[in-house]
């Protein structure tokens, strides 16, 4: 095949995808919007839980000194590299009908996906928060003690003081959660209108060879991420 036509075929689906994305967004195509809703649902739930659990754990890990601190930090950092498919398989093993939590009926549901995504996001939040807390200016604690802060005040004020770093942790975790496919696929089952998320939809279209559709959905996903980050950017320092 001559070079020009190879370039043509490869790039065309990128351009096609771009226009399709606009079309999908404007037309209110229901399968797209149900996938958007599923993604927002699962990712918001998992982010909330992982922040509520990860922030205090990260604080404890960064602030205090205790015997197993180093090995725990190392294990946590390793968990940052957990492949999403593996997390999906682990969650499946638990919530499968024959698994220990089989009775809860979580397989093929968005809640099941959210659980898996929480497992994915938790190490990210915890590890980054611990790193932030460890690097807190020692003058902060000194200042707080000087102004009469007790243990509880110190913890809460420290967390507030590092809020910008924590925001970065949340955004990083959110990125990981928003773009994962493995958990959504294995735990959710990619069921149309129910557990088909943006990422599993992209995987499906790509697998069917409909690359332009894959790109289109990818652009829609990026638009969601952009909107969320835009709103968060106003919380930044300046």
């Amino acid at each position, binding site marked *: 095949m001559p070079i020009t036509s190879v370039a043509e075929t490869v790039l065309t689906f990128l351009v096609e995808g771009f226009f399709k994305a606009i079309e999908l967004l404007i037309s209110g195509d229901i399968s797209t919007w149900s996938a958007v809703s599923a993604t927002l649902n699962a990712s918001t739930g998992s982010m909330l839980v992982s922040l509520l659990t990860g922030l205090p754990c990260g604080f404890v890990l960064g602030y205090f000194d205790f015997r197993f601190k180093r090995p725990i930090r190392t294990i946590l950092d390793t968990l940052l590299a957990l492949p999403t498919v593996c997390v999906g398989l682990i969650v499946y093993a638990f919530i499968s009908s024959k698994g220990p939590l089989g009775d809860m009926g979580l397989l093929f549901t968005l809640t099941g996906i959210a659980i898996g995504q929480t497992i994915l996001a938790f190490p990210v939040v915890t590890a980054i928060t611990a790193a932030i807390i460890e690097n807190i*200016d020692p*003058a*902060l*604690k*000194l*200042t707080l*003690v*000087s*102004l*009469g*802060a*007790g*243990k509880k*005040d110190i913890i809460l*004020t420290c967390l*507030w*003081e590092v*809020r910008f770093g924590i925001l970065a942790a949340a955004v990083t975790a959110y990125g990981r959660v928003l773009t994962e496919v493995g958990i959504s696929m294995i735990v959710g089952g990619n069921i149309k209108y129910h557990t088909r998320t943006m990422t599993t939809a992209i995987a499906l279209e790509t697998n069917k060879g409909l690359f332009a559709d894959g790109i289109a959905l990818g652009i829609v996903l990026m638009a969601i991420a952009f909107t969320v980050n835009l709103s968060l950017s106003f919380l930044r*320092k300046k």
Partner: protein
Amino acid sequence: MASPVPLYTLCRLCHYYGGKKVVDIDEFNIPSGSITGLSGPNGSGKTTFLKLLAFAIAPSQGEIRFNGRREYPMSARVRSRVTLMTQAPYLLKRSVLENVVYGLKIRKDTKKLKQRAERALAAVGLDFDGFHNRAWHQLSGGEAQRVALAARLILEPQALLLDEPVASVDAESARLILKASLAARDKWGCTLIIVSHDLAWLNACSDTRLSMEKGRIFSTHEEIILPPPYQTVQTGSTVNWILPLSNGRQVCLPDKTGETALIPADKINIAREVETQFNGKNRIPVLVTRMALEPKTGRIEVDLNADAFGLTLLLSKEQAGALNLQPGKKRILVFRTRDVFWR
């Protein structure tokens, strides 16, 4: 002097940092309502000492009594009664007003917050309307340090510990910081403990002048430090300790029974080159570098430079006059080896 309970009593206080002893104080009192000035070379343990007094860290050994009672970090009796201000201005990431009232808010003392904040800021020379809304990153170094001071003064602490309060600020801020600190002492008897390299100012306002060397405290004007390095010299079968000076001269020291050699100020004589008296007396040539009036006691501070080290003596006006001391003049310090002691 009447003996109310000293604000601080230190007993066999030792603190180690990474295996090294950084504070080593046998027994010491700090009277309530006094102003203590602390100077010393870098690494002598001054900042650690302040942190111990602020109950920010617990000592490795020994005890610190506050108002007569042994206290520990995070103790409720100590919280917001002792406050420390760091050398580099440090503010919380919030507005000036929020910074100033933070301490009051956490001890739930929130009546008339705005007025009290206004007064605290005025005490450090900051106009409320212009400053209270500014964010922490919109202040100059001097302004930030002043806000930090206001945040502490508003708590009316019993002890105010200042670590190099004027080192990182402009001259105007320095003046205002000192003014506000002294006013605190006048208003509610706040005890000030100030670490500074600015010796002139420290001397001018302190009741007690201390020097810190290798974690130990010395009374600055009463005990003159003959600093290391020390050497040993073998003469026959005896080993003698000396402090070498330039030009091959040396100071003979008694047997080493401590880390630092000291001589009481009143055991030093200042003589002119002409007079020669040997026999067990050390002679150190010095240059008078600075003389200043110490307003507190009316005595004259004389800074002398001995090449290897410097020292400051406090003389009465008459003594200074009799010795015809002037900056730039050369003199000899004379003292006996047996008056030197180790600590």
